[in-house]
């Protein structure tokens, strides 16, 4: 049976059976999705919590279920959740029907739905429900579970309670069929694959009639305790499972007898008093914080510090067990030194056990973590996206901990939370610690570039290049800064130097060709195009050149050839898009003549340049020069198709810089009839540059037109894919004005600050809206910019603090009340 790579959805994955099944499915290589409520505890899933895809959904809420099903798109569903309001059959049935509706709508590729009959007294009703689901076309099979037991069971449930030390004075007289958890998990896996089960209910039990008294007797015998409490009086109902159907239909038979199962449970409980079995089994080398293990004989001969460096080496090499053993040995030899516990913390963090890591760090010194350990904890907390905690720790470690990694970590965290000055200060310290290395300057240049501080970025890179003159990557980085700054000849000099150092590097070769094309150096461009290129790349750039020359027919054919060579993926998408652009350009009407001067301000679309409008494309064709407010090569390549000069004018959020950028464009307009300033999204939504240009054009008598484009508010709801209510409309709000939002409509919230101000804005949002209200956060840039993060208002602070400065929030409309009227009221 192969579940490898299959999309499976598990409900009830944080429960006893569901968690065991989810872990097993992960081990099978399945792509495991789980439903989780905000209150779901990750404890039972342990390390697996971080390996599954979690969808916030509640069986009581159709909307969240539908959304989860749509996102998970499961082939297989294992439904083990119970309705949290209670376990009556009616509630279970209602929850099941809600899930059925969600799967019908959102899981078109569903192959099998394995559901669970929890309530034996309602067996007849449950069979009817299963029949109803099957009749509705759902590939459902039901497993009727008998008394499931095993490690991970709730301590108050029988027989775990007895193993945990409870002494029941009264036991049920009913006949029980105890079935071990591993056997149950195996049954679910078989039910996922066996053919022809639709509509059937299959009992899963051992077929052996046992009683609670027998189980207690076994446990007492194992523990060496005498006697057993008497079974309760009264009718002794119940029956064991009929194992025939499971054997016949699934090929399943129980493998663990009650005695064996209880013994396994007792062993697991004795070894692991407070954590999930799986994590312990996976990571026995983690151990308990504060426990000082004795060194192994083989380790005694090694010096303690060679042990810890060995642990670090093993850790880096991925041999976590060996690293754990070395760290244990080190702790045994030097129990007072912090390095051992820190290594154990790193190991725990590596497997996603944050609580364990925190415990080890806390236990690293007699009165808490030393300052250098605080730097480690700060690094880990940043990784866990606990930026408040990370900043506290890093700040505390700052005075005393100046090693390169600690300084680099602080710089990285400060940069991520928008504290750029502090990040740069740390990198200055790093320069002192690593005087011969170009690394601190290269990092600082990246931060300056992000802030559009080109002179500073270039100064850093000049230093870095002096330190490592043979490093082609540094030359390329400096070329890029020149490119963004708008100095194409300087960018070309650097890329030529990088090419001389690394002539085989494809990125450097393409940068070099791009610059030749943009600088209209036809001879050099043609010469480079004659060189050997990987399949499709040469055709692409030749098509590009033909488009610049307005030879659209040839260009279209070359892009088609490049597309065919590119197969699937982003390059093929780009080729197909360029081919289409050339088609639209070839059919464009002639540009209207310019009366006087005209400046166009346009966005290339949030998903640029794909969302460019036809009007903007036609307008670009009639311009004499472009001023691009975007610095990435995607935009440069796209604008380069039109064969007119382009300058990059980039600023970051400060009015002074927008004025400087506007000045560049206005100066150029002295000699131009029609120019275009291009931005990303809607230029007049938080567009200081557009605002400044409009003002300046008005003052100089230059006609100015803003061409509409797809803004983030137009785009975000289609990314989220959530349509609610019957009302058509939208609200867009600044974070400074969140009053009186009409919650019949979706709301898009813009303009988040950085650092602590952002946290304050988040608190305001949390005061305005209910904590369980779902919302989506979209990063404004970076790798995740097209992947909205689903969260709730209550959990927004964590999501917001790690989001891009240009993050945007979408709050979908609430569903309308059924009695919502449509009568007019007075204003």
């Amino acid at each position, binding site marked *: 049976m192969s579940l490898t790579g299959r999309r499976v959805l598990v409900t009830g994955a944080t429960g006893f059976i569901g968690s065991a099944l989810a872990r097993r499915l992960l081990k099978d290589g399945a792509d495991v999705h789980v439903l989780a409520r905000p209150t779901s505890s990750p404890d039972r899933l342990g390390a697996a919590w971080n390996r599954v895809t979690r969808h916030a959904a509640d069986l009581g809420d159709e909307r969240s279920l539908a959304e989860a099903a749509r996102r998970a798109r499961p082939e297989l569903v294992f439904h083990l959740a119970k309705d949290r309001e209670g376990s009556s059959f009616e509630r279970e049935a209602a929850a099941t029907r809600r899930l059925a509706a969600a799967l019908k709508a959102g899981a078109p590729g569903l192959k099998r739905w394995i559901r669970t009959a929890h309530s034996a007294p309602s067996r007849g009703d449950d069979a009817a429900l299963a029949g109803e689901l099957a009749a509705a076309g759902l590939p459902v099979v039901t497993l009727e579970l008998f008394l499931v037991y095993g490690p991970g069971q709730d301590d108050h449930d029988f027989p775990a309670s007895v193993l945990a030390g409870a002494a029941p004075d009264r036991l049920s007289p009913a006949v029980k069929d105890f079935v071990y958890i591993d056997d149950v998990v195996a049954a679910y896996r078989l039910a996922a694959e066996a053919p022809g089960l639709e509509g059937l209910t299959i009992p899963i039990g051992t077929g052996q009639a046992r009683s609670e008294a027998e189980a207690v007797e076994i446990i007492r015998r194992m523990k060496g305790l005498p006697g057993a409490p008497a079974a309760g009086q009264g009718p002794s109902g119940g029956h064991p499972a009929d194992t025939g159907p499971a054997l016949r239909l699934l090929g399943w038979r129980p493998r663990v007898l009650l005695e064996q199962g209880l013994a396994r449970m007792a062993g697991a409980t004795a070894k692991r008093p407070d954590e999930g079995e799986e994590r312990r089994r996976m990571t026995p080398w983690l151990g308990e914080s504060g426990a000082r293990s004795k060194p192994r004989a083989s380790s005694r001969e090694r010096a303690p510090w060679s042990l810890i460096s060995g642990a670090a080496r093993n850790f880096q090499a991925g041999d976590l067990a060996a690293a754990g053993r070395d760290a244990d040995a080190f702790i045994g030899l030097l129990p007072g030194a912090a390095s051992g516990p820190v290594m154990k913390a790193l190991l725990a963090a590596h497997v996603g056990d944050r609580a364990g890591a925190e415990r080890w760090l806390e236990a690293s010194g007699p009165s808490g973590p030393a300052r250098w350990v605080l730097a480690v904890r700060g690094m880990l907390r940043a990784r866990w996206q606990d930026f408040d905690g990370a900043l506290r720790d890093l700040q505390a470690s700052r005075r005393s901990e100046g090693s390169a990694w600690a300084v680099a970590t602080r710089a990285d965290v400060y940069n991520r939370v928008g504290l750029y000055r502090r990040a740069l200060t740390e990198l200055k310290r790093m320069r002192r610690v690593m005087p011969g290395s170009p690394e601190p300057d290269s990092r600082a240049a990246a931060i300056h570039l992000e802030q559009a501080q080109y002179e500073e970025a270039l100064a850093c890179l000049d230093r870095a290049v002096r330190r490592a003159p043979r490093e082609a990557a540094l030359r390329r980085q400096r070329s890029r800064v020149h490119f963004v700054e708008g100095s194409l000849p300087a960018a070309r000099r650097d890329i030529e130097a990088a090419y001389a150092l690394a002539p085989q590097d494809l990125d450097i070769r393409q940068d070099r060709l791009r610059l030749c094309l943009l600088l209209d150096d036809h001879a050099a461009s043609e010469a480079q195009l004659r060189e050997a290129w990987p399949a499709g790349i040469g055709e692409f750039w030749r098509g590009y050149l033909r488009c610049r020359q307005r030879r659209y027919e040839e260009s279209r054919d070359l892009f088609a050839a490049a597309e065919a060579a590119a197969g699937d993926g982003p390059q093929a998408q780009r080729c197909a898009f360029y081919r289409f652009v050339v088609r*639209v350009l070839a059919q464009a009407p002639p540009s209207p003549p310019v009366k006087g001067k005209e400046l166009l301000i346009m966005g290339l679309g949030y998903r640029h340049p794909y969302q*460019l409008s036809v009007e903007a494309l036609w307008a670009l064709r009639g311009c004499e020069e472009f001023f691009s407010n975007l610095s990435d090569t995607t935009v440069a390549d796209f604008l380069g198709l039109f064969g007119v000069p382009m300058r990059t004018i980039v600023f970051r959020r400060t009015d002074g810089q927008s004025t400087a950028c506007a000045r560049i464009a206005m100066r150029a307009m002295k000699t131009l009839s029609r120019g275009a300033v291009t931005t990303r999204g809607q230029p007049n939504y938080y567009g200081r540059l557009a605002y400044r240009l409009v003002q300046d054009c008005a003052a100089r008598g230059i006609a100015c037109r803003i061409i509409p484009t797809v803004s983030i508010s137009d785009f975000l709801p*289609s990314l989220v894919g959530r349509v609610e209510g019957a009302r058509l409309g939208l609200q867009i*709000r600044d974070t400074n004005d969140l009053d009186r939002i*009409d919650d*019949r409509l979706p709301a898009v919230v813009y303009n988040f600050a950085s650092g602590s101000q952002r946290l304050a804005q988040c608190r305001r949002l949390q005061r305005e809206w209910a904590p369980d209200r779902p919302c989506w956060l979209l990063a404004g840039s970076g790798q995740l910019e097209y992947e909205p993060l689903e969260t709730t208002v209550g959990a927004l602070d964590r999501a917001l603090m790690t989001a891009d400065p240009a993050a945007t929030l979408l709050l979908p409309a609430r569903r309308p009340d059924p009695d919502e009227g449509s009568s007019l009221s007075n204003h």
Partner: protein
Amino acid sequence: MEKLIICGLGVRVPEETTLESLQALADCRVVYCDLTDKKARAWLAGYCRELKTPASAEAIIKDAAVGGVGLAVWGQPQFSSRLARATELAAAKAGVSYRVFGAISPIGSVFARSVSFLGGDYGYQGIQAYSVETLLADPKAARTDLPLVLYAEVNDPAQWAAVLERLVAAYPKGHEGRMFSARGPETRAPLPETKPSDSCVLLIPPVDAPVQRR
């Protein structure tokens, strides 16, 4: 590849149609489009293999079961087209894979064409945009201290008259609205004299002007 794609063509067709949407529609086996404007339809037909007028969302979904179906509507499909919304909901319900493409909304269109700004210290602090029908259901929801964008895909004079009557009462006498139609230039008129047309968008500036900072 999704079986159904849903695209908005913007307020002005073809100008506000995005290249991404047009490319996706060009790849479809059949495109349903509910625009009545002949010029716009003729232009779109030049890029589509087959252009049809939709009978209903259900009919589109039925055809989409085979795949290769596109739906092109006015404006932004999730904010301004009832057909697009009904089709999206029906697709979700029927389990038909679909994708909605971002499009220029009536809000974005009039904000750009009217050279209005959204942005804290130099523009408005927010925008509220309603289809006429939605605002009619609760005119109290609208605020006069934020710009109000009103739109209707199909002109219903009675609905416009009803909503304008409410708005006239809420705004100061002589307060001007700015009307943007699918073709032609912007027209300005005091609210009682505003004459909406098919596929038009009305921008009513707020009572207080936005912050102007230099």
